[in-house]
């Protein structure tokens, strides 16, 4: 491979790296608004669920595990996890993007945020599944 060919190939690679755009900013903003509003509702339900019994009792280990065993409650927790993760990590991304304006920083922040978001969702989902113990009741 000649040096010019190598340069062209490496340029193509960097161009692929820099030109990758999964979503337009307006679409991301829309998702940010929708997840924010939806999270408000599901978190409100989650807090109200604490009031069906005395507050101290609701946070006891056995009652918490019992909550996880309820499939609807587990789904509610999963939706909170997904919505808050998307909304929160996008907020963090927006703040980080304003700190520096280089293309490499922008791409690095985007990739880092997506990886962290997927990691948090995966870890949270694992916790919910383990606590639920695959029980439907």
């Amino acid at each position, binding site marked *: 491979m000649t040096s010019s060919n190598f340069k062209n190939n490496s340029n193509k690679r960097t161009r692929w790296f820099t030109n990758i755009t999964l979503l*337009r*900013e*307006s679409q*991301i*903003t*829309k998702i940010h*608004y929708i997840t924010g509003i939806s999270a408000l509702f599901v978190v409100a339900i989650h807090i109200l669920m604490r009031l069906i019994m005395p507050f101290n009792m609701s946070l006891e280990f056995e009652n918490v595990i019992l909550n996880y065993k309820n499939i609807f409650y587990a789904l509610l927790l999963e939706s909170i996890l997904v919505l808050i993760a998307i909304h929160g990590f996008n907020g963090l991304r*927006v703040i980080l*993007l*304003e*700190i520096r*304006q280089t293309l490499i920083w*922008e791409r690095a922040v985007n990739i880092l945020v997506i990886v962290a978001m997927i990691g948090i969702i995966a870890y949270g989902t694992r916790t919910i599944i383990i606590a639920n113990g695959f029980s439907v009741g």
Partner: protein
Amino acid sequence: MKIFKKDKKRDIKNKEAIEISNTTDNTKSSVKLRVFRINAIQDPKDVHHFDEFQIPVKRWTTVLDALLDAKSYHDSSIAIRYSCRMASCGSCGMKINGIPRLACYTKISELATNTITCEPLPNFPYIRDLVTDFSQFINHHRSVMPYIQNKKADIPDVNELTEYEQTPEDLDKFLQFSYCIKCGLCYSACPTVATDLKFPGPQALSQAYRYFADSRDTDKSNRLKVIDTSHGISRCHFAGSCSNVCPKGVDPALGIQLLRSHLLGFSNSEKKIAKLQDRSSNPYTAEEGEGDTEKNENNDK
């Protein structure tokens, strides 16, 4: 009682303003002018200082008049950019007593203080003294394609050129935003521009809306693509300081919000338009006619 107190305060303020303007005594009819001095080309270390001048003022003296007085009679090396002296060219934008304003449009008597501090516009690189570099600002303005793009326009055939048709209602949708004089005050007041240099700024975004709302423009999608980036319109925090400092009443914050609602597809609403008066008949003759009928009615009674 409250109204009485307010009146008293207003009277005191008016008296102070009149004192500044009317007295011929040098100590009372002069102000201390503090001018920011820097030469970024010769001294790139960003070392600056303030020079102070005692300038005689009258009721109608503007900050630009005071600066030109200082330049004429105290220090000819002060660098200022100015041209029309009537808030039409937008050249003399600077930070006066902490707020971005046009020097030709700011009377010293309005400021109600005896110390006037003039600094270059923030968010712009310094060149010398009060003169700043507008190249980044102009590049942002250029990037939003601030011109009408109409593929149906018959420009190659000059002989058959026709005028674009536009109703007064269509004109009113963007007229307010077309009053922009590109003075850069909104850009200097914007907190997002202060941290993000890739952000186009309120001027460029409001001009993007000005051409987006223009019924003669047919290539709206390209303009939206330019501003729909990670450092584009979504980074506006809606602080509203751009609209506060605009000397021409353009209200760039309104333009940005309208453009954003179009971009997100949440709303297709345009600027609220005032109802136009019916000018099909001569208003003077119509009024006379109405007056005549009233007179006749009175006579009948």
